[in-house]
């Protein structure tokens, strides 16, 4: 049955001197440079490209370009494999490996095809109806079955070896589509001095110019297109992008162009160019010259391999010199498809025309008849006959047709091995609709056309429903001129083209018998939705087209309804007795065609996946074996395990060093904000719950911040550097947020305050030297200032030098030990850190990480905003009532603390927990319940906020937010854990170590 179909001559795009061979499903196929996988495979005589999604019916080529919905292939091997590419767009090269999809084990013999025999049981809404119950079947029965049977293509294996990138670009005019209209619009805009980007999804410009016939200024249309394209490539103010599909159009003319830079050329790819590039274009004006897409006709078994669009059949001959078959039928309701018949006849292919219109007159039909092509007017194809397995057609049935006719009584047979169908042309409105453009139904075209658009978008040519060459040129040149700003109208060349008479819509070609009695009229080929499915949905009450869409999955496949949309609406309209505008439309959503994840990620992969912030000491931490803890985008040392130590052993060692000797922590990530101005003190009184205007210069005070809801958002120590000058410390994650927060209140509420705020977090490295020996270490560092307890007591500050290092020293403690936080400008940070490590050696100094820090603070009952608080926690909840000023008239959150629901008696309060078994460490987040039951649900009365094993105390400690917790001191409560274990713990004070604070004031 398979025989070569390459014509002896013709094929504008191929170079017969350059043979190219590649594989399709493992078999070698040869073609010529310029071929696509589709054209080369067709030339080899093979018709079947894949199996359909639901019924596993064999499917062949239907389209010419990106509208192709059946011939989807996976291309490339291993990590470079890319599924779901349209064979019509994949350019071949030597060594290319393509595979068909959705078939098992082979294209010609497919197990899943049983679904087709059982299709009576797979009506529209099948999945909804069948897989609803029993619920437990979903996970183990239905889902694995569906996943195996369905799915298009398979994912690549392994890490993507190629590079991808994104680029932002701005232009005055973005012209999408490089066909006749796009070329004309771009030329006019460029001539007016605009910065123009012309993007086209094909390897070269021209659109359908090469298969449309006609002349411009005496030149054949393809020659005019080539010449205009060359001028645009050469222009200084134009950037032309080939192989670049506009995949989405968003607000304010933000358009994404997906450029396949190197897919077509392995040599280019191996030179290191990005495989794909995603352009993020911001255009003042967008001109949509996206053309139109031919629509199929719904006739019985219109999905059989060999049934294709008339434009595709014409394109195969004209572009690639490939015959769609040896003897075929053009089935049409318009004049345009006669061009296909004429081209086929010229190439020596047997052809006849079946025209559903009562009268087939006009230039093109007459020309066809003159050439000896038989034309059956007032007729339809009522059936196709196929060979074994439906792998290819052998003939068609032709019947007479009147509009409204429901069923065919008499039909005559004719031999045919292909059908070229045309149900008219739909303007490609996808991009128009992505950005909220309205569309309207055009009775003459029987298609939707652009209506209103609130953005600066203009559709021209076929995209605007204009198909006559002179009309396209006039409109496109005018639009390009007008939108470029200066508005000098570019001269419009003269056009000559055969005139076409209007189409007559046919949404459904009748057949003998009822629907689904061996006859399937496919509407959405990719999702296997038939006319019968749409009618069933109507009968079942899915009146809204949006409901029908979701119920039947019509228009929801990767082709986003490119060929099916209007046909489906036509069927629904006829079934419901409405007009198409009454039925309404569904929305096209991005992307226009699928695009790669690689291009979406761009260069933001591997070490660039997330911006990582490093302190000045980062490399030292790396060199000393630090395990990392991500804190926001920062990487902080979690602990520094030594040879053979577990993290736990290492953390315990670090904690005990701080408690008994001295430790060193890189605290550079803490937020640091300078605040200065005559109103700075009053401003801080507004920001913090407690009072800062009373703070003495040179002193530090711990402050709490609430948002306006009365919930804790940050905390930290603020230092008064001078009368009108403060330095605020924030949490590590809070620096940018809190500095923006301060600015917001200054700019939007207390605009009369004279205060400046500068975030200086990154200017300083800051290290905590903590432990009983901290002063000895500091002394060894040659301080230029008095560090005695009298001169520099707890919560005080001094500025000076340690040896040659300029420093600010804050005597503050988050560990409960004698502690100095030493800050030095960041470019000196590493140097000072090393000096401290060296100076501390004789005192047993150990660097410690964030986990030791957390255990140390938990032993002291110090809260961490974000651990002990969850965004709904007030200062009172965590027992810090003392830090909420009673004197200040107003500060952020004050009024909200007075609301009833924040004063309710049963709020959760922060308490300490001591487990009955001291070796039990409660998991973070464990729930406390009122009564333990055999199984959930159990009534929850609180949860663990922090939980550690304390090496200092030799037992576990925890903090928890427990309903009415402070009134339950001494009570034992239960924490049922997953797996059935119940941990019991006694409610205790949150301070587990050195309750008097004796160790702080030494």
């Amino acid at each position, binding site marked *: 049955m398979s025989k070569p179909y390459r014509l002896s001559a013709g094929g504008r795009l191929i170079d017969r001197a350059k043979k190219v061979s590649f594989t399709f499903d493992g078999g070698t196929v040869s073609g010529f440079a310029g071929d696509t996988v589709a054209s080369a495979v067709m030339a080899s005589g093979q018709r079947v490209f894949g199996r359909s999604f639901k019924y596993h019916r064999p499917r062949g080529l239907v389209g010419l370009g990106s509208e192709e919905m059946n011939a989807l292939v996976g291309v490339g091997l291993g990590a470079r494999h890319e599924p779901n590419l349209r064979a019509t767009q994949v350019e071949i090269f030597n060594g290319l490996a393509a595979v068909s999809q959705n078939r098992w084990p082979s294209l010609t013999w497919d197990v899943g095809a049983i679904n087709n025999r059982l299709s009576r049981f797979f009506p529209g809404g099948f999945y909804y109806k069948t897989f609803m119950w029993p619920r437990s079947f979903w996970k183990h029965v239905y889902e694995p079955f569906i996943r195996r049977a369905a799915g298009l293509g398979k994912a690549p294996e392994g890490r993507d070896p190629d590079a991808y990138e994104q680029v932002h670009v701005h232009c005055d005019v973005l012209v999408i589509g490089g066909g006749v209209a796009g070329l004309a619009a771009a030329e006019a805009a460029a001539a007016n001095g605009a910065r123009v980007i012309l993007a086209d999804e094909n390897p070269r410009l021209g659109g359908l110019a090469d298969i449309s016939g006609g002349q411009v200024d005496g030149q054949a249309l393809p020659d005019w297109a080539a010449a205009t394209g060359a001028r645009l490539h050469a222009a200084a103010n134009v950037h032309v992008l080939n192989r670049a599909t506009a995949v989405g159009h*968003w*607000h*304010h003319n*933000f358009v994404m162009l997906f450029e396949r830079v190197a897919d077509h050329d392995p040599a280019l790819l191996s030179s290191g160019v990005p495989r794909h590039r995603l352009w993020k274009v*911001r255009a003042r004006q967008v001109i949509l010259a996206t053309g139109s897409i031919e629509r199929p006709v719904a006739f019985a078994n219109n999905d059989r391999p060999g049934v294709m669009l008339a434009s595709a059949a014409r394109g195969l001959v004209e572009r690639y010199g490939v015959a769609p078959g040896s003897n075929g039928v053009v089935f049409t309701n318009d004049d345009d498809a006669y061009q296909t018949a004429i081209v086929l006849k010229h190439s020596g292919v047997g052809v006849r025309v079946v025209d559903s219109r009562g009268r087939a007159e006009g230039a093109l039909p007459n020309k066809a008849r003159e050439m000896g092509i038989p034309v059956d007017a007032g007729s339809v194809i009522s059936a196709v006959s196929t060979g074994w397995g439906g792998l290819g057609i052998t003939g068609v049935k032709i019947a007479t047709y009147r509009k409204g006719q429901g069923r065919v009584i008499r039909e005559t047979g004719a031999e045919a091995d292909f059908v070229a169908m045309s149900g008219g042309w739909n303007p490609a409105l996808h991009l128009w609709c992505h950005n*909220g453009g309205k569309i309207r139904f055009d009775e003459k075209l029987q298609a939707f056309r652009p209506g209103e658009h*609130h*953005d600066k978008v203009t559709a021209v040519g076929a995209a605007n429903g204009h198909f006559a060459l002179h009309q396209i040129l006039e409109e496109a040149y005018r639009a390009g001129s007008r939108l470029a700003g200066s508005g000098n109208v570019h001269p419009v060349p003269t056009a000559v083209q055969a005139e076409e008479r209007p189409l007559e819509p046919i949404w459904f070609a009748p057949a003998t018998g009822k629907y689904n009695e061996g006859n399937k009229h496919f509407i959405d080929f990719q999702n296997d939705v038939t006319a019968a499915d749409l009618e069933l949905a109507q009968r079942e009450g899915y009146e809204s087209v949006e409901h029908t869409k979701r119920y039947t999955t019509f228009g929801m496949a990767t082709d986003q309804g490119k060929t099916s949309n209007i046909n489906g609406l036509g069927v629904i309209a006829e079934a419901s007795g409405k007009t198409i505008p009454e039925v309404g439309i569904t929305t096209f959503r991005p992307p226009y065609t699928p695009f790669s994840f690689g291009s979406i990620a761009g260069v933001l992969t591997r070490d660039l996946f997330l911006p990582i912030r490093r302190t000045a000491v980062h490399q030292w931490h790396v060199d000393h074996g630090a395990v990392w803890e991500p804190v926001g985008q920062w990487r902080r040392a979690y602990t520094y395990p030594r040879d053979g130590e577990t993290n736990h052993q290492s953390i315990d060692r670090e904690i005990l060093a701080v408690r008994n000797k001295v430790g060193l922590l890189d605290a550079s990530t803490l937020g640091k904000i300078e605040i200065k101005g005559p109103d700075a003190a009053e401003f801080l009184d507004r920001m913090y719950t407690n009072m800062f205007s009373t703070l003495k210069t040179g002193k530090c005070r711990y402050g709490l911040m609430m948002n*306006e*809801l009365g919930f804790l958002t940050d905390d930290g120590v603020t230092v008064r550097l001078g009368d009108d000058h403060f330095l605020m410390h924030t949490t590590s994650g809070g620096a940018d947020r809190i500095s*923006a927060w301060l*600015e*917001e209140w200054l*700019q*939007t*509420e*207390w*605009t009369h305050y004279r205060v400046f705020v500068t975030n200086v977090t990154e200017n300083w490295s800051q290290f905590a030297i903590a432990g009983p020996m901290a002063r000895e270490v500091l002394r060894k560092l040659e301080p230029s200032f008095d560090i005695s307890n009298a001169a520099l007591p707890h919560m005080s500050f001094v500025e000076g030098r340690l040896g040659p290092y300029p420093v600010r020293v804050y005597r503050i403690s988050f560990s409960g030990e004698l502690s100095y936080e030493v800050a030095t400008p960041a470019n000196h940070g590493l140097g000072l850190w090393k000096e401290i490590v060296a100076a501390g050696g004789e005192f047993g100094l150990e660097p410690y990480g964030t986990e030791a820090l957390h255990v140390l603070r938990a032993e002291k009952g110090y809260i961490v905003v974000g651990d002990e608080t969850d965004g709904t926690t007030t200062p009172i909840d965590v027992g810090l009532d003392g830090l909420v000023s009673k004197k200040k*008239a*107003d500060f952020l959150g*004050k*009024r*909200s603390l007075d*609301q*009833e629901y924040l004063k309710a008696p049963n709020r959760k309060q922060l308490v300490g927990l001591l487990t009955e078994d001291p070796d039990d460490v409660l998991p973070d987040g464990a729930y406390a319940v009122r009564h333990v039951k055999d199984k959930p649900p159990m009534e929850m009365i609180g949860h663990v906020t922090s939980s550690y094993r304390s090496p200092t105390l030799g037992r576990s400690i925890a903090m928890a937010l427990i309903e009415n917790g402070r009134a339950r001191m001494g009570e034992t409560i239960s924490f049922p854990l997953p797996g059935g274990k119940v941990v019991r713990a006694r409610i205790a004070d949150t301070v587990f170590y050195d309750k008097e604070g004796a160790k702080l004031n030494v």
Partner: protein
Amino acid sequence: MLVVKCPVCGAEGDETDFHAGGQAHVRRPATCDPAHVTDAEQRDYLFIRINPRGLHFERWRCDRGCGKWFHAARDTVTMEFKAFYGITELPPMDVIAQAKGQWAEYFAKRLGAERSRETGA
């Protein structure tokens, strides 16, 4: 993605260069008279917002630019910005005139109050 223009420094850019700050012209009752803010006033201040289909008034910050807050009038259907104006200012009169529903009521009250303050002074 929207294109925003800062009225303070004139920088124009993608919305990712800016920070959206919710509804504009929300009054903080405690700033004026902290001792006499009713629960209802506080509730309205914290939680009650206008959510119109059409012209809306918002706060934005020139986050990756001059750092200043400002106001914007935006149509929530077409996404068109009708005006950008200062953080302490009211919208231009021609934009106020286009306001509907709750916004129209708000501006009528606000302008009325200002007029009576002027005549009182």
